[in-house]
């Protein structure tokens, strides 16, 4: 038996790339995909890099591919959106060395600001081939196959795992590691210059984009043939005339449902786009109805409907467009329920569930106890409330400032939106101060462009950069402001305050986010200035600092004087350190969780909390 290892789906994909001889791996962190890059970074012969953003990562990979080496880009679905512009060109030129794009989707948005099906932009928009794995082993096999096919077909291949595949852990077989090719570059301007340029093709004058678009379209016929033979698609016979089309993780849930219901259904397992047309038709011809299980949009369902229309085939197709829920993630429970609806006699096989007769409070995310941001957010909240200003937000740990109890930021969209949206509010004629708060990784990702734009536009606003030297939210990956790279080796760090100054910000004040009075003072000054004032709140993430011993405060016990506490609740409802509890009209410190940062001493204006 081949050697096996208990791996997470992301590690399995990383391993697949290593076995395929990958040489350059570039990405930007994002749940659910981050561990793919972290895994490959353990191999010293591979260039692994956390980039400034996903577009840059894909561009780096294409550069490597031009030199005939294998490369892989790693990102989450939101990042694939960011990389789309470049992707819409690389699909026209095609690749040389195998190029695989891992686009991790997060149906149900468990760790994301939206739920999105990246098969839509990668396949329906960019016309790239897409593999959709159902388990860690298949994810690994798909990555390897994608590298070989990418080179053969000269196209970037996309592997689109959903979060449950990325984070799923099971035994995965290990195979031999192939040695990657050597870098060599050859010019081909007829291909790698994408521009509006007339050329003569087949006797006619055509614009370059049309020529390359035609090339891409012609590739589709070859791709269709490849997918027909792909091991990632197969048919399973079963009882009845209702066929279950199980795409990606949908296969896991359909197979589980068969086990629970004790019935073998006809199953068409699909893992590729384009679909294996003949296989699909062969399966569909024997059926009256098809139910498509896919995460998370009705992509395959739509393609099937189109295909059957063209073929004049009368088969009903249902799925995520209505029969199954159109939002959220699929599950085995959903698959079982849907099958019981189709076969009511199976209802008795459905596992019984007994709801607990009790209301269970929801748990919202907040900053860690001891997080450096809590002081900064408190100061910003005091200032914003005082001037009745608006605060726009961005993505990262500090975004929890928009939930109770802080309720500070008024907007959260995608990475880098805070400063441009603040500019828009100010340019609309809004007559109160406008603040934008953004994390350092998010600032570099593309927030910096919003800042440069704001400065040039002459707007008045205050931009606060939360400089914790890491991408904390997604698991502490370095970024261009960090002093280390993915391997922990020293790397040149870019200084946000100097950058802002060089760009012409009115001011760039560096503050300690634990120091509430200092933050307040800087904000007070900034509010009164014209132009764009930048405040850089610099302090390593508390969780990282706790490990490295670089704490931004000297831990010292705090005590709460019950006599002095008047029960105003400011410490819990306005400031909100989770280590402060409230009961019977008084605040109390939970010494089990308090980390002795002392910020609450400043917060309680009655002096009820003091250093011991």
């Amino acid at each position, binding site marked *: 038996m081949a050697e096996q290892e208990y791996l997470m789906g992301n590690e399995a994909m990383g391993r697949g790339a290593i076995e395929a001889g990958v040489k350059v791996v570039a990405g930007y962190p994002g749940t659910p995909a981050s561990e793919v890059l972290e895994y490959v970074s353990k191999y010293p012969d591979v260039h692994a890099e956390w980039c400034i953003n996903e577009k840059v990562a894909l561009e780096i990979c294409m550069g490597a591919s031009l030199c005939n080496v294998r490369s892989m880009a790693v990102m989450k679905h939101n990042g694939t959106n960011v990389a789309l512009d470049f992707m819409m060109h690389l699909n026209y030129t095609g690749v040389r060395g195998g190029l695989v794009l891992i686009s991790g989707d997060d149906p149900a948005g468990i760790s994301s600001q939206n739920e999105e099906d990246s098969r839509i932009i990668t396949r329906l928009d960019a016309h790239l081939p897409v593999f959709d794995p159902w388990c860690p082993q298949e994810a690994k096999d798909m990555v390897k196959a994608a590298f070989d096919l990418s080179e053969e077909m000269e196209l970037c291949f996309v592997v689109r795992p959903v979060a449950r595949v990325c984070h799923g852990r099971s*035994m995965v077989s290990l195979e031999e590691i192939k040695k990657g090719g050597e870098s060599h570059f050859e010019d081909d301007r007829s291909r790698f210059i994408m521009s509006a340029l007339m050329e003569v093709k087949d006797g006619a004058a055509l614009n370059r984009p049309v020529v390359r678009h035609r090339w891409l379209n012609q590739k589709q016929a070859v791709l269709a043939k490849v997918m027909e033979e792909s091991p990632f698609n197969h048919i399973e016979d079963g009882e009845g005339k209702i066929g279950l089309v199980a795409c990606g993780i949908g296969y896991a849930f359909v197979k589980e449902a068969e086990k629970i219901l004790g019935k073998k259904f006809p199953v068409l397992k699909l893992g590729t786009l384009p679909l294996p047309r003949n296989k699909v038709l062969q399966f569909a011809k024997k059926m009256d109805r098809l139910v498509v299980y896919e995460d998370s949009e009705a992509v395959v369902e739509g393609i099937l409907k189109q295909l059957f229309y063209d073929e004049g085939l009368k088969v009903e197709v249902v799925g995520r467009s209505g029969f199954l829920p159109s939002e959220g993630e699929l599950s085995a429970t959903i698959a079982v329920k849907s099958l019981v609806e189709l076969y009511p006699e199976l209802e008795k096989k459905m*596992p019984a569930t007994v709801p*607990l*007769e009790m209301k269970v409070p929801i*748990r919202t*995310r907040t900053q860690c106890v001891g997080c450096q941001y809590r002081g900064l957010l408190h100061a910003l909240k005091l200032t914003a409330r005082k001037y009745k200003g608006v605060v726009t937000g961005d993505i990262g740990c500090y975004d929890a400032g928009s939930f*109770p109890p802080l309720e500070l930021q008024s907007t959260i969209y995608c990475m880098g939106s805070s400063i441009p949206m603040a500019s828009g509010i100010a340019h609309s004629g809004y007559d109160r101060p406008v603040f934008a708060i953004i994390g350092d990784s998010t600032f570099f990702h593309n927030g910096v462009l919003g800042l440069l734009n704001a400065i040039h536009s002459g707007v008045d606003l205050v931009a606060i950069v939360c400089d914790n030297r890491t991408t904390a939210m997604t698991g502490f990956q370095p970024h261009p402001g960090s002093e280390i790279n993915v391997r922990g080796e020293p790397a040149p760090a870019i200084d946000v305050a100097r950058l802002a100054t060089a760009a012409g910000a009115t001011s760039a004040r560096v503050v300690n986010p634990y120091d509430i009075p200092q933050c307040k003072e800087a904000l007070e000054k900034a509010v009164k200035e014209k132009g764009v004032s930048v405040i850089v709140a610099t302090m390593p993430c508390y969780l990282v600092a706790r490990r490295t011993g670089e704490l931004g405060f000297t831990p010292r016990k705090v005590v709460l004087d019950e006599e002095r506490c008047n029960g105003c609740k400011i410490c819990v*409802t306005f400031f*909100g350190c989770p280590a402060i509890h409230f009961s019977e009209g008084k605040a109390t410190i939970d010494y*089990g969780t308090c980390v002795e940062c002392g910020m609450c001493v400043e917060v309680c204006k009655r002096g009820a909390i003091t250093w011991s």
Partner: protein
Amino acid sequence: MELNILIAGVGGQGNLFASSILAEYVLKKGYKVFAVETIGAAQRGGSVVSHLRISDAEIYSPLILAGKVDILMGFETIEMLRNFELLAGDGIYLLNDYKEPTVLCNMEMDAYPSDEEIRAALKKSGKKGYIIKATECARKIGGSLLTNVVMVGALCQVSSPFDSQEVKQVLAGKSPARAKEQNLQAFDAGGSLIQEAMRKA
């Protein structure tokens, strides 16, 4: 044989370490394993749920079906209650009597259920289970971070195919040197706690 274990807790309680000890043990025994955790809000006081599926046959779904959880381990009280509906008719729960208030509870905008309410609802459910003070015990040994190990020690007394002595060896092998001693102590303490709870029941 199929065994589905669900671990429900809050960020920082070490679900993953608990799950990987159990997984490593059953993998050694030749079972198939498919596990998954919800990560994302892990560090910032969010809910964390780990699914661990063990079987001698092929396992397809990484997520346990509603009504198919054989053992529900609650590292935190309301996190277990939140997932209680997933428990199978003959499933058992193993609750750490530890409460981490939510932000809204702290603000008194939500009420953390009282012990009486919880016990009444659990009783009414008719499900079998045990409540132990794992975090309290962990703190005595060396810190609340040992809660997961105490819980694993307890689990090994109530569920096959886990053999306490053998799982302990896996734990020893997976523990960093500086934590080994305390981990093993916590594991044993979990076993004693549950035995006491079983005697009382």
